[in-house]
């Protein structure tokens, strides 16, 4: 028996747990909920053993290192810490309502790793710079904090949904969809039309997005339909990105590695950046219709969830607690230990490489969250929005930098 079989069993356990948690929401039978919890505990236990075994196996292979150093292992570890934190929250808050949201993420992440052969499961040796005890602490604490931020994100989205009384007029959706319909071809055009235009287009788009975030944070509490729109965008973004990347992985593998180029060059090539116009059009149409589905059906989801969810205050408090735990861990493990390690390896504790910079940006966003809460006494909607934006930063720090940008932290990449 080796670790990969155990990982398979854990994946299966998470699948069963996911089904049970969703049926718990649908049928509201306590027995089902209890079964869901037990299966989750079992899955977590098995995954823990599997992680330890993988560690042991690496020693047997004469490599000897903690299972935390490539994309495969970091995704497995991310899943593990998310489930662990979920289990703690379930126990502490005595509610199983969040299970139906967390377990699908855990299952999809594990299944995705297993299905996509682009992510190598082999225990590969480490380059000398990574052979440090700091690696273990740095990556371990970073991922625990990512997981707490992830839970905070999920809970914030639930808060935003619960916060909405009505979805607002169709005009709202029309604006958002219209913006997409206009921006997509424009972006497509500019992407091919010389560097200057491209740069300005993306900067402009970024500025628009940031302006919207700022507006939501400042005035969002009064404009609930806008917040609901933001919620729909977040859900679409999270689901859409995962799906598009999944398709990329699979096609990349089916086509085979014709060139020696890395996967990151091919990101979104099978969907949004495809060479074939109909595929691009179809991808964006799919995003739009998914967006519409989320936006139009959200209130129905809310009606179902309402019967299970604890009070709004509790959800808000949970978000805060997750960030209050995650932020110090991220500070100590992600930033400080990373800096100390870099200093012992390269003689520079801070080099502004993209991953460092993005983790600093994420750190800033959560710092804003904490200051808004402590100094200004903000609660509720605005906080949930900042928390959601913060997690977009986390996702970019974790995946975006490795896949899109380049730098010293290439170990998480696809090569």
């Amino acid at each position, binding site marked *: 028996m080796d670790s990969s079989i155990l990982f398979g069993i854990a994946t299966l356990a998470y699948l069963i747990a996911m089904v049970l948690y969703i049926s718990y929401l649908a049928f509201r039978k306590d027995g089902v909920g209890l079964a869901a919890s037990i299966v989750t505990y079992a899955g977590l236990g098995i995954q823990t053993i599997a992680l330890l075994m993988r560690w042991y196996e690496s020693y047997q292979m004469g490599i000897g290192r903690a299972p935390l150093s490539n994309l495969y292992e970091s995704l497995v570890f991310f899943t593990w810490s998310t489930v662990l934190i979920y289990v703690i929250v379930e126990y502490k808050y005595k509610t199983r309502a969040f299970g139906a949201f967390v377990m699908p993420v855990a299952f999809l992440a594990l299944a995705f790793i297993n299905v996509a052969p682009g992510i190598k499961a082999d225990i590969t*040796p480490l380059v*000398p710079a990574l052979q440090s005890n700091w690696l273990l602490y740095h990556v371990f604490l970073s991922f625990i904090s990512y997981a707490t931020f992830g839970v905070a994100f999920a809970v914030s989205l639930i808060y935003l949904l619960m916060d909405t009384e009505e979805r607002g007029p169709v005009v709202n959706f029309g604006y958002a969809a219209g913006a997409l319909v206009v921006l997509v071809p424009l972006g497509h055009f500019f992407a091919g039309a010389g*560097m200057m235009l491209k740069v300005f287009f993306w900067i402009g788009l970024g500025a628009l997005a940031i302006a919207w975030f700022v507006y939501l944070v400042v005035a969002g509490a009064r404009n609930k339909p806008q917040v609901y729109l933001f919620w729909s965008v977040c859900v679409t973004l999270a689901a859409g990105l995962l799906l598009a990347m999944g398709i990329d992985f699979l096609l990349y593998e089916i086509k085979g590695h014709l060139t020696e180029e890395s996967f990151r060059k091919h990101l979104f090539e099978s969907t949004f950046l495809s060479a074939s116009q109909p595929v691009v059009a179809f991808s964006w149409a799919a995003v739009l219709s998914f967006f519409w589905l989320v936006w139009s059906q959200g209130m129905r989801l809310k009606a179902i969830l309402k019967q299970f969810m604890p009070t709004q205050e509790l959800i808000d408090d949970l978000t805060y607690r997750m960030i209050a735990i995650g*932020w110090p861990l991220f500070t*100590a493990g992600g930033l400080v230990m990373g800096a100390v*390690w870099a200093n012992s390896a390269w*003689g520079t*504790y801070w080099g502004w490489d993209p991953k460092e910079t*993005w983790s600093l940006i994420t750190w800033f966003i959560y710092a804003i969250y904490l*200051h808004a809460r402590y100094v200004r006494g903000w609660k509720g909607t605005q906080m949930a929005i900042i928390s959601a934006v913060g997690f977009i930063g986390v996702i970019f720090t974790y995946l975006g930098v490795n896949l899109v940008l380049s730098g010293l932290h290439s170990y998480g990449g696809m090569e």
Partner: protein
Amino acid sequence: MEQQKGIVEIVSEKVWKFFSSVKLAVVLLIILAIVSVIGTVIQQNEPPEKYLQEYSAATVQLFEAIGFFDMYHTWWFVLLLFLLTANLTICTLDRFPRTWSIITARLKPIDDEGLKAVPFKKEIIFKGGMDKAEARASQALQAAGYRYLVSGGPGVHHLYSQKGAYSRLGVYITHTSIILIFVGALIGTFFGFKGFLNLAEGEPSNKVFLRNEPMWDKITAAFGIGEQKVIRDPRVGVPSMPLGFIIRCDNFEVDYYQNQGIPTGMPKEYYSILSVFDLEGRPIIDQRRIVVNDPLTHRGITFYQSSYGMIPGASGKIVLTVRPKNEASPGELVVLDPGASTYVRSIDRTIKAVGMAPFGYRDPATGQVRFLRSEELINPTVELEVYKGKSLLYKTYVMKADSGEPAMPENYTIRYDDYWGARYTGLQVTKDPGVWVVYTGFILLCIGPLIAFFGSHKKIWVRILDRKGHASITVAGSANRNRLGFEREFNRIAEKIAK
């Protein structure tokens, strides 16, 4: 007589107010977060040709002018960081006295006015007299770990207690840590440097080439004051600086991960053996081994193992050990050039190194020696011919990592030791006198938030009033953090008193 405020006072007051606002901090954080993105999208510090490949000439010019290619060191980015630090400092100075007076304030017994402002309250009627009630209350407080003060007069007893007042310092510790990190970074740029040194095996150096000159030297150079340490030789192009001692690379080696005893070409570890001498040549450090993650420091200057490479056109020396088979003996060291031969006295043979390949290996199945093309010395393999006088006795191959046994027909063995002098070690050299300030900041940055988020300044008051032989007990409490947790604790204590 009222004094009119001078213009200086008004302006300084305004400036102080501006810098002490949290709004400014949040705005600066938002701006920094947004601006930082640019530098992650545009690759930093690339050669100009690369930018011209990616952007049009006009864009390159524009970006160059704004400083987007080395954004994190532009004056405006540093100014933003500086503003944030100034904001933090002044915020801290502005608020600290108030916090400190809250921390050091003597806790007073609670009165009716105070009771109105307290978030947690409980009224209990205790049938048993005031002294018994006080004993109860003191027991409950002690059990919960509160050390309390007592006061009172006729018909009224007060017990009051506080815990965790110093947790209010958590936020100041956090902010101070960030200020320290910034100050440490400034000390580093002013008085430290970053440089590099490529040393061939056996090569000494008394200077280092600079990437970042110490800012202080730049400033003194601009004013023409002070002693100039940086040497700007137009023939070299890169500024350099004397070390004040001599560093020598004695040896450099790379070990590769192996698969079935054959190196794979993926480096497992590389290391340099360095020796340090003073300027007169007296040895100070003898043969220290440095690897990635484990540097050597001498007089504040640290040498990091960072890269390596072959010296173009250089030929090294082959180092072999010849040892008798059935005798414990250190053997005889043989050093020869590729293609040359030498007479080995201890075995009365002449050894000729016919050829030298960077990557040879012994096929585990056939025992045949094969060669792969490589620029690096992955598994140096030497083809040897052994002569007695003029007559060839046998041929054999020796290599660094051998998956089998080389043919050694006579009663001695020849072992491959080194191919010395063809490689250089790439050292990153830095001096950063601010790093300990930064590290102190790091430690505080790890501690501060924990105290700030998980510590709580908790206060509990118990007032006992005489009501015709019974005691009317009022329990009140407040906490500045984690109210939900405190509420549970408060209820436990109140219950214990009431029971």
